[in-house]
């Protein structure tokens, strides 16, 4: 199944929020979005449907979202289907966030949220839990004249195909996922060396240089992979 075919259940007592989030998801390309404004309605929909993800408000008129989460878990257990849940709440206290995550939720987003952030977090959970890849990202990427084939781990520049190393692949992937944005040196180091990135800044520069040799026409005057002084790198 494709990522955008995921069935999503929204639960919030605020009808305007439901309408707005549904619109956001539909505009993003999600085809199956259901909404429930009450506890019982949510239970009925969840029981009847096969959802890939649930967006759940913590404060509901007939009972709180944490109890609903537990009910979903029980229903999911009967169906043998562990559905990921993202809490969407106006309660931003640490204790609420920890309670939600402690119950086993996959994420906890506090209102007011950035629409883009919400979409990215939903995508991240869907990919992590159901191993989805949206079509755009699962195949190839075009960076200037260069075509990157993620599956093959190759870069095609001026007709010649070059292999990229695992580190270069991870680096390029991270930059591609955040294209147009600056990715900090520390975030890139964390991607390449998740166990502890401190002290790897010079090694990162070496990988960047090698990557530029593969994706830039003139690596000494990069046009695609830009350095932002002292901060990080940006893929145009």
């Amino acid at each position: 199944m494709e990522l955008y075919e995921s069935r999503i259940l929204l639960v919030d007592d605020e009808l305007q929020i439901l309408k707005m989030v549904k619109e956001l998801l539909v505009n993003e390309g999600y085809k199956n979005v259901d909404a429930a404004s009450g506890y019982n309605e949510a239970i009925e929909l969840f029981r009847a449907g096969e959802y890939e993800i649930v967006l759940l408000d913590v404060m509901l008129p007939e009972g709180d979202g944490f109890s609903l989460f537990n009910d979903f878990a029980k229903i999911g257990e009967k169906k043998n289907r562990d559905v990921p849940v993202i809490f969407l709440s106006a309660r931003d206290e640490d204790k609420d966030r920890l309670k939600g995550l402690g119950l086993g939720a996959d994420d906890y987003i506090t209102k007011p949220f950035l629409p883009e952030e919400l979409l990215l977090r939903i995508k991240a959970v869907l990919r992590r839990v159901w191993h989805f890849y949206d079509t755009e990202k699962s195949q190839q990427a075009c960076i200037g004249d260069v075509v990157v084939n993620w599956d093959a781990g190759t870069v095609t520049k001026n007709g010649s195909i070059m292999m990229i190393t695992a580190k270069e692949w991870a680096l390029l992937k991270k930059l591609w996922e955040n294209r147009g944005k600056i990715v900090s040196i520390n975030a890139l180091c964390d991607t390449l060396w998740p166990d502890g990135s401190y002290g790897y800044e010079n090694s990162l520069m070496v990988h960047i240089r090698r990557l530029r040799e593969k994706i830039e026409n003139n690596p000494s005057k990069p046009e695609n992979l830009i350095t932002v002084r002292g901060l990080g790198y940006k893929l145009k």
Partner: protein
Amino acid sequence: MRRVKNFLKYIITFIFIFLILMLVDIIFISIVGICTNSASSHVRVGWLSEQLTRSSQPDGMGNYFIMSEEGLEVIDMMDGFAMLIDENGKVCWEYKMPEELPKEYSNKEIVSFTRWYLKDYPVHTWITDDGIFVFGKPKESEWILNLRFVMDTVKIYLAYGPIIFIGDVILLVVIPVIVVRRQSRRRERERTAWIAGVSHDIRTPLSIVLGTAAVLKEETGDAVIVKKAELIEAQALKIRTLISNLNTENKLQFGLGSWNKEKFTMAAVVREVVCDIANSLQDERYGFDADISEETEGFMVCADRELVRRLFENLVNNAVKHNPDGCNVSVRMKKGCFPYRCIIIVEDDGCGVGPKTLRRMNMPMEWKELPEHGLGLRLVKHIAGLYHWRVRFGKGSTGGLQCLVQIA
């Protein structure tokens, strides 16, 4: 620790006030005492008795005594009377003695008035060679109090009295402090709950505003509407930051927040903040860069990561907000001088601020002014204060604003 310090400060202040009040009271009592017990009202009976001498001529009563002019003057001045009682209990000389008083006294009566009153007249006695000299004053002009204690009781009073007094003073000081502090804590909690409640209620509508603006941007093809939607988005984000700052500031101000203590790399947080702001802004008029020295690249701090993030977020956002025509924001991080381990400088090349504003920015925070403006910078100072860091504002090398954060 901070609470204990504040409590001690209150106690010391109260003790200080108490001592000052005691001093003022003692001075007042002394002045009143000196004024009312002046020489004119206090008679030395011994001296007066010496003014009564034997004479060769008998007086009107046939007694051979005479009082000097000075002695009579003093008695008149005091509106008093005087008499001399001989060994047989008879009055052998008197001056202005009230008629109601007897002319003869038994031993029992003499013993009684030497200690108390003579028919309600306060009297002073003095033993002379000729008998007992009595000087009396008008009724209700003196209060006579005879005190007599068993020595053991006096010893106990002397031993425990000061302790009881100090205990009383401490209780007098501590109880009001505790009551006042409790009341103010309750008020602080109510205020925090109120702010949290209001901000909670704003969150949902703000989400709808942000989301609807995003949907509008996505769905419309009209560039003007996109621009307007972006404006709505930007303003909604400002309100979001404001609510967040207000909540944090309130918790910091009244010590009601629970902050984490975690070790993290400062450079990572600084870069993360600048990158996030640059990415969300996406405005070519603003440039961002960082210069982190090699020796501070791995510099770690133990604090609440979110709070520290907020500190730098507010500094960078402040530079953006006050330079609407654009500017370059640079962040430098270098080794500090003792006692500060690291210095972080956030500087812009924008329009800067005047010397008056700069002076105000460097002044300690006070709650005299309502913080509608500059809440972000108040929060910067508060967060820095929480970790004993130092924040100084100054003029940048290109005339913009510079903020120096010294980390201990």
